[in-house]
């Protein structure tokens, strides 16, 4: 057990450093962006005096490192700070954005894993056959259409033409669970692209695994076809897809800006975008902490899967 435990502990310790790195990187980049919160708040009336006044009221006249240090000091006490623009606590921003984001992400992943793996396995089973080509073409085709166009298309057909589903979740606010119909299209759009990347990776891995002697032996020994596919071949095929899945979850939690905008689901992506364009650094930093921690956790999980599925690694001289 100790090898694994020390691996996890080391990664968590490094993870703290990585999160700090994320925060620093994001801070540096946001600082380097032209303008600051005062300038963006001034909008199309950038009167220099007014900007100076806003700047003073936001304490933006302090040097960057002092502001960062101040913010980091608060973080040690579990305080993520307050928004420069509204003065509301950053935790509130995160909490508001997190709920819809988590809901969407959870639903999407819950469907994505079986769909991606299932399609990948199916395509691999019939390599070069009609099913394979159909699955590959359709998923690739959808992948090559940008989310936005795909979303507009789905809305047009299923919401506006057929009237089966609401076109957006406008006004539903945090109460998305009560309106499951409003989630169907966003989840469909969110699924469209990752299904392709994951099923393609699973397919590739499965082709190699299914052609392997151990699978031939398992077949010969009369083990059920499904069991061979999912318990024997899949573990050897799924490591890259697990990494891709971690990336997808990352993306679902932090970057589904297009879907959020198209279906009016104000999640973390929207919070992030607004905060960046307002140069609301405390909020951006708070998000960076969240993303950093999530990424560390996801990467660790994905690496544990890889580690578990290729147990020989680390043994080699």
């Amino acid at each position, binding site marked *: 057990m100790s090898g694994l435990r020390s691996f996890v502990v080391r990664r968590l310790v*490094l993870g703290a*450093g*990585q*999160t700090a790195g*994320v925060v620093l*990187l994001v801070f540096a*980049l*946001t600082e380097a*962006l*032209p303008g600051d919160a005062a300038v963006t708040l001034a909008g199309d009336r950038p009167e220099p005096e007014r900007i100076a006044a806003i700047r003073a009221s936001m304490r933006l006249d302090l040097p960057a490192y002092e502001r960062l240090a101040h913010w980091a000091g608060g973080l040690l006490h579990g305080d993520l700070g307050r928004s420069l623009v509204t003065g509301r606590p950053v935790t509130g921003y995160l909490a508001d954005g997190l709920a819809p984001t988590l809901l969407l992400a959870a639903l999407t992943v819950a469907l994505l894993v079986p769909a991606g793996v299932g399609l990948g396995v199916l395509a691999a089973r019939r*390599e*070069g056959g009609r099913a394979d*080509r159909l699955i*590959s*073409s359709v998923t*690739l*085709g959808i*992948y*090559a*259409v*940008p989310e*936005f*166009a795909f979303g507009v298309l789905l809305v047009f057909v299923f919401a506006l033409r057929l009237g089966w589903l609401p076109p957006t979740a406008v006004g539903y606010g945090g109460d998305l669970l009560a309106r499951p119909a409003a989630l169907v299209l966003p989840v469909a759009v969110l699924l469209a*692209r990752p299904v*392709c*990347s994951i099923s*393609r*990776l699973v*397919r*590739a*891995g499965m*082709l*190699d695994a299914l*052609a392997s002697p151990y699978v031939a032996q398992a077949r010969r020994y009369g083990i059920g076809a499904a069991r061979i596919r999912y318990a024997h071949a899949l573990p*050897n095929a799924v*490591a890259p897809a*697990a*990494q891709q899945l971690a*990336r997808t979850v*990352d*993306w679902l939690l932090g*970057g589904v*800006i297009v879907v959020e905008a198209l279906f009016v689901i104000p999640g973390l992506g929207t919070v*992030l975008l607004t905060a*960046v364009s307002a140069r609301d650094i405390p909020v951006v930093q708070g998000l*960076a902490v969240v*993303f950093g921690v*999530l*990424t*560390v956790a996801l*990467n660790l999980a*994905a690496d544990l899967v*890889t*580690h578990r*599925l*290729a147990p*020989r*690694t*680390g043994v*080699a001289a």
Partner: protein
Amino acid sequence: MTARATAARPWARFTLGALLVCLPLALALLGPLFAGAAGPRGASFTVGGGALLGTDFAGQDVARQVLLGGRSVVLIALSATVLAYAVALPLAFAAALTHRTWLEELLMRPLDVLLAVPSLLMVLLVATVFEPGAAGLAVLVALVNVPDAARIVRASAAEAAARPAVEALRMQGESWWRIAVGYVARSCLRTLAADAGVRMTGVLYLVATAAFLGVGVDPDAADWAVMVDRNRTGLFVQPWAVVVPALLIVALSMGTNLLGDAGLADRAGTGRTKGRTRKGSVG
């Protein structure tokens, strides 16, 4: 006997991919030759009129833009993917082939930091700060893809890198490159191809979205991906400005991937054709 049929016509499985890839590729290569000079601008989002495919969001002739817009798509897709892999592969293989934990952590953990920043945001932030040109943006987009690609390559290489065959290669004093590329990469070629194929398309739109937000390529540039992105507001007035370039990209992406599939199936093709019975044999 299907195996035999395929074997008899090995080109058959390439046809679909080849057909799909032909049109966009031909347009990309030859399109600019036929585009001709720019006519006067019309109103935006008109259908018909003088222009075959109507006009786009800025009143430019869609047909002409389509003819012009393939070259950069193909160039960016290829060069950004190649570049992303050129960086990701050595990193990933170094991590997979080393036995020094610290080295692996040193190579991979900093990449994780980049992963934590959503890629579009990353591109926007960096591009806004450094104001790269079109080529610079392609490079940036490629680099944003590096951590992702590196992790996937690393994961798929993990098993192959630990095989006795690699030990034997080390025993022979083989160079790191030959082990990495000649054996490990070859062993996970399918996964690499699958990832690269999909990544290629992703890269295109990241560039296009960045263009829309004002970095890199001109937002009214002749580029299929940019066209899809920019003309979407007029989708219901002037569908061609979106549909035509989108279909071309779909064909390009689908075609290359299917060709890749066929190529790899060909490579392993014999492996799937088990023994054949000569006609007339018993049983």
